[in-house]
């Protein structure tokens, strides 16, 4: 196989499928999860110094908090910016605005300042040296509350960091705080009894506009320029949906690319960790820092090595690699501005060097991608929470329905779902990725089910009664296609400026706001 293309060209798809089969047999016998106490550390990859010279800001930011990660990295390396100055800029924004946004559950003020001061005294080495980051509240953070917005974890303070969080900090990242989320990662950010919390940064006076869920606070914190970047988790759209709703670049990597150790589980076989970032380069930096095997998470082991995501995201106005862009039937026929934006995207990517290819998956593919098989995830959510369900079902608040449903699928139905997932992956590799390298997607469910990578990024805006709101598109790729997805996003972003636009601060200040409430049935309709 060639060694100079992106990683998706070096993965033998037959071997990938065979591996899945072998693992399925092993999993059916019960694969133990190692109970290692110490999170694994990633091997640092040498940084190409040229990466930072391309990161200098092109405009005049109002505040250091407006910088991207790569822009701030360049200024921190040149000595024009100090980590304390950067962290303080974010903390000031949070202090001034978060009463309206409600993006944070916990702000790590003192420790973030202490850490920034410590980093200010040493030469920048790590990819994220001095960069303030927002962490979704389902990642374990040592000595810091970790609630997943659930009554179950209301007093939980872990004694270790999730591997992803540890790796971000090893790379020099500063944990600014923990972000609001849908209870137990199920829907838009709510209190457990259904009160709406986080608002969309583009419409802060209209709580009825969803910020996207469940990584709602992570998206709002970055879109509102209160944190430079953030991480979230995705089981059913929870990175890409809020990123799309708030004009961000959200990347859900291939299953196993980032460790899930220290993440409160929602669905063991579908949970993914990924960045919600301001552009492709920032997403690449965060993924680079987090990706790689972890002895404490078997899902991360035996996979291809971690490639150079930074190089992939440095693409200029032409695509880094020859790329066939798959287009599904009817995708460009969307009504109104959405259709115009989609057609403009394809036209621009063709100019960037992409070959547009029509892809028409079979009815069988559609069937296997449907909500029917999506339901098979539910027993995986119920099983780890059985103790809490036995103790008191009221702890689950408005999200109880789906935990109860998971108790009513039998073993043979769970196995049927697993077999269907294998069938869907096989069809996806044959019917879609034999013909293209990346493919547009109408929704996140199919690739969430089979653990394939997805990226979203903004392609324009639309006017609504509540104000101007971003529009994004969703692209998928075969296993380990993160480089390819980043390169496409980077080329688009080099040719356009949608990702650089930022929302205005709350027009009506930060006073009281009637936010409303969702009941259990509304949550069930929106649940992951």
């Amino acid at each position, binding site marked *: 196989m060639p060694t100079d293309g992106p*990683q998706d060209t*070096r993965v*033998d798809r037959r071997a990938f499928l065979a*591996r*899945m*089969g*072998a*693992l*399925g*047999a*092993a*999993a*059916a016998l019960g694969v133990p999860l190692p109970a290692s106490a110490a999170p694994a550390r990633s091997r640092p990859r040498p940084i190409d110094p040229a990466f930072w010279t391309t990161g200098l800001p092109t405009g005049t930011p109002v505040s250091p908090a407006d910088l991207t990660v790569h822009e701030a990295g360049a200024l921190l390396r040149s000595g024009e910016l100090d980590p304390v100055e950067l962290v303080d800029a974010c903390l000031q924004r949070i202090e001034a605005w978060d009463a309206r946004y409600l993006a944070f559950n916990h702000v790590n003020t003192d420790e973030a300042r202490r850490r920034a001061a410590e980093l200010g005294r040493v030469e920048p080495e790590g990819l994220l040296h001095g960069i303030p980051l927002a962490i979704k509240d389902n990642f374990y953070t040592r000595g810091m509350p970790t609630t997943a917005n659930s009554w179950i974890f209301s007093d939980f303070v872990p004694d270790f960091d999730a591997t992803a969080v540890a790796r971000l900090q090893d790379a020099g990242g500063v944990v600014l705080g923990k972000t609001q989320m849908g209870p137990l990662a199920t829907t838009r950010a709510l209190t*457990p*009894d259904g009160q709406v919390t986080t608002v969309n940064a583009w419409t802060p006076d209209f709580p009825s506009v969803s910020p996207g869920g469940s990584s709602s606070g992570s998206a709002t914190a970055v879109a509102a320029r209160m944190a430079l970047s953030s991480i979230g988790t995705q089981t059913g759209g929870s990175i890409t949906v809020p990123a799309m709703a708030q004009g961000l670049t959200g990347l859900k990597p291939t*299953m*196993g690319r980032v460790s899930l150790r220290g993440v409160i589980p929602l669905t*063991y*076989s579908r949970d993914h960790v990924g960045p919600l970032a301001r552009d492709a380069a920032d997403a690449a930096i965060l993924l680079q820092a987090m990706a790689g095997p972890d002895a404490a998470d*078997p*899902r991360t*082991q*035996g*996979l291809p*090595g971690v*490639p150079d995501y930074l190089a992939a995201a440095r693409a200029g106005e032409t695509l880094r690699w020859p790329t066939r862009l798959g287009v599904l039937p009817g995708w460009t026929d969307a009504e109104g501005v959405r259709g115009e934006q989609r057609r403009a995207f394809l036209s621009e990517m063709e100019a960037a060097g992409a070959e547009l290819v029509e892809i028409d998956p079979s009815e069988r593919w559609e069937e296997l991608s449907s909500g*029917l098989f999506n*339901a*098979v995830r539910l027993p995986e959510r119920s099983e780890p929470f*059985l103790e809490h*369900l*036995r103790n*008191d*079902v*009221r702890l689950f*608040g*408005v999200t*109880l*329905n789906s935990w*109860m*449903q998971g*108790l*009513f*699928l039998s073993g043979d*139905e769970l196995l*049927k779902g*697993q*077999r*269907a*997932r*294998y*069938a869907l*992956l*096989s069809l996806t590799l044959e019917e879609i990725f034999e013909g293209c390298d990346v493919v547009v997607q109408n929704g996140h469910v199919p690739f969430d089910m*089979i653990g*394939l990578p997805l990226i979203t990024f903004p392609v324009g805006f639309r006017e609504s009664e509540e104000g101007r709101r971003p529009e994004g598109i969703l692209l998928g790729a075969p*296993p380990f296609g993160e480089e390819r997805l980043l390169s496409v996003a980077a080329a688009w972003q080099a040719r356009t400026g949608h990702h650089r636009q930022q929302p205005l601060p709350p027009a009506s200040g930060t006073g009281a706001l009637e936010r409303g409430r969702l*009941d*259990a*049935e509304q949550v069930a309709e929106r649940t992951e």
Partner: protein
Amino acid sequence: MSPQGAPRGPDDLTDEELDQYIRTRLTLIGIDLSVLPEEDPDAPADRVRIHRSLRNFLRNTVPRLSAYELDPQSYPPVLYPSALPPVTEIDDAD
């Protein structure tokens, strides 16, 4: 069989029959819904809504999933689309 002798399908099951099945299953695994209010729209959850949700799930999802056919010679069950080291190292030039 129904009283008329025709085979019964999922749609023929009454709410009472499904509710009894739900209560039995939950009792078997030690889950108690009686701590919830019977019916209270202002509560995060109540027994009426939980039972309604579960009846819909049992009628609509379970029979369709069970009836779906896959070739028994293909697609062994797969839990994780990733790998274990003893069986899976991929040659990677990098």
